[in-house]
């Protein structure tokens, strides 16, 4: 039954309480802005398709950066142009979510050009609404990749010239050459009829995602009266005579039938069957350390830092692997200097009894430093009461902090004696587990077997770890 009342869709917040200032009812958009119309069409579609609670809306940088003031969906605001990457991540972790990447032409076609290309090429099962207003609205009307030849903008005051600024980019045509996408259409908001076409296209694109048919993108030619410096009604003439003349409307690709509807994937990380999706080791107890670690050593956030080539990334990786084998939740993020050797390198490791919200370690509870610059740089960041282990063969100063526990290990000399100074990283690793008792020797040995590719080096590493454990225990 056609609805008897056309009113603000339920997928909008009742009150826009996230807006600052007294007005909690209107949007921040200029009079006649296409963003407002599109929000309405998307909200209405979500109501009618019954997906409001499943929608995750990726807010771009641009005038629509605050779409989350209005649309009562799951909302994430992301870095400029990166909406397709974040949409990909959300969709893969939450296959049941309906993920909408909403992007302007500056966001999608300029700074985020490669992001959209790769997401389309992968055929990610997401829906992209691409708002083409042929200008950077938010920043005051600069040239966009989609601005027309001759169009006057803040950065092309004499009009876009092909020689200097290149030609306007036709995104739909470009993406339609790829195998990946399922559905690509360009529509317009110029007339009531075209707006209805847009309304249909939005629904189709969302429907395709609901049926897991793959990547959809709807490009919407949308008025920006402010950026174009015309009144809203006049903006329609420019759309007809200029914009639609260059950007042809229509369906550029639709292979929905060849990519038949699929049921939702079983494995949704957040659904009830999380436990069966990822098997935890069953012989968990066997791998836990003999004595459980003192409370202050539990759930550590580590930073492990040194020169590139000292093996600090491998050290962290081995710890994370051993932690995982012991049934902990773990994270590991490497950070490389620009050079492969000789530059600085560090990694951040989390080992936790509970799920880890963020893998970023800005204030470590444990710092393992294997050269002086790393100790200089990261010692001040250690949490109060934290632990510092450093290689005293290479660091000839004492720690400055007195509110932390610190242990000096002659790691490089020990490794030298064992025949290879490069095993110093494993001496440090041994010292850490010897000191804290966080991980068992067995779990580390098992991890070593997985992470060390050259098997003839395993023996040396085992010896180095055992030496380290002795030092660590000695420092208990």
């Amino acid at each position: 039954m056609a609805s008897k009342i056309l009113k603000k869709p339920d997928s909008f917040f009742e009150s826009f309480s996230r807006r600052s200032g007294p007005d909690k009812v209107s949007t921040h958009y200029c009079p006649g802005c296409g963003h407002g119309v599109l929000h309405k069409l998307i909200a209405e579609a979500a109501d009618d398709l019954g997906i409001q609670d499943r929608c995750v809306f990726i807010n771009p940088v641009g005038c629509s950066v605050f779409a989350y003031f209005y649309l009562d969906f799951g909302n994430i605001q992301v870095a400029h142009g990166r909406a397709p990457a974040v949409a990909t991540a959300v969709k893969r972790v939450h296959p049941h979510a309906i993920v909408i990447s909403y992007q302007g032409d500056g966001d999608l076609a300029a700074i985020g050009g490669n992001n959209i290309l790769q997401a389309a090429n992968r055929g990610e099962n997401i829906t992209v609404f691409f708002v083409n207003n042929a200008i950077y609205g938010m920043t005051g009307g600069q040239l966009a990749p989609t601005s027309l030849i001759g169009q006057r903008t803040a950065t092309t005051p004499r009009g876009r010239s092909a020689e200097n600024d290149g030609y306007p980019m036709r995104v739909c045509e470009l993406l339609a050459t790829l195998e990946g996408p399922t559905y690509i259409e360009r529509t317009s908001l110029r007339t009531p009829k075209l707006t209805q076409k847009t309304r249909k296209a939005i629904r189709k694109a969302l429907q395709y995602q609901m049926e897991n048919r793959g990547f959809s993108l709807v490009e919407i030619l949308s008025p920006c009266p402010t950026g174009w410096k015309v009144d809203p009604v006049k903006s329609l003439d420019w759309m007809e005579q200029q914009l639609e003349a260059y950007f042809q409307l229509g369906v550029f690709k639709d292979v929905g039938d060849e990519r038949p509807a699929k049921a939702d994937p079983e494995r949704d990380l957040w659904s009830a069957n999380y436990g069966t999706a990822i098997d935890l080791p069953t012989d968990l107890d066997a791998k836990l350390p003999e004595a459980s670690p003192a409370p202050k050593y539990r759930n550590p956030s580590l930073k492990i830092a040194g020169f590139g080539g000292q093996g600090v990334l491998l050290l962290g990786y081995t710890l994370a692997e051993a932690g995982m084998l012991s049934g902990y939740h773990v994270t590991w993020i490497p950070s490389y200097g620009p050079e492969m050797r000789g530059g600085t390198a560090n990694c951040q490791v989390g080992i936790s009894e509970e799920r880890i919200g963020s893998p970023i370690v800005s204030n470590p509870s444990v710092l393992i430093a294997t050269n002086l610059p790393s100790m200089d740089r990261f010692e001040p960041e250690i949490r109060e009461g934290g632990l510092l282990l450093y290689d005293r063969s290479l660091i000839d100063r004492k720690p400055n902090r007195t509110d932390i526990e610190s242990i000096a290990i002659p790691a490089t000399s020990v490794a030298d004696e064992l025949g290879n100074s490069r095993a110093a990283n494993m001496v440090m690793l041994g010292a850490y587990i010897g000191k804290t008792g966080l991980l068992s020797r067995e779990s580390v040995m098992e991890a070593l077997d997985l992470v060390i590719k050259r098997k003839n080096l395993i023996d040396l590493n085992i010896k180095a770890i055992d030496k380290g454990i002795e030092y660590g225990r000695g420092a208990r």
Partner: protein
Amino acid sequence: MAKETGVLKEACVVIDAEECKACYLCVHHCPQQVIEVSEGINRKGFHPARYKGTGCTGCGICFYACPEPSAITVYRKGAVKQ
């Protein structure tokens, strides 16, 4: 203004004068030309759009043309209005 309630015998459009930003896209697109610009000024400083009072067919064109979520509500014939 007296509030109309009950089942509507005729379609009508209700424009919230305070929510209108005076883009006049509704005025421009209404096929019946039953929306006009009012002389008064709203709190945003605009002359808001206003329904002429008769002749709306409930086509909904103005609703889909308007960028503001709550500026326009269209009641079709037979709708129950509170």
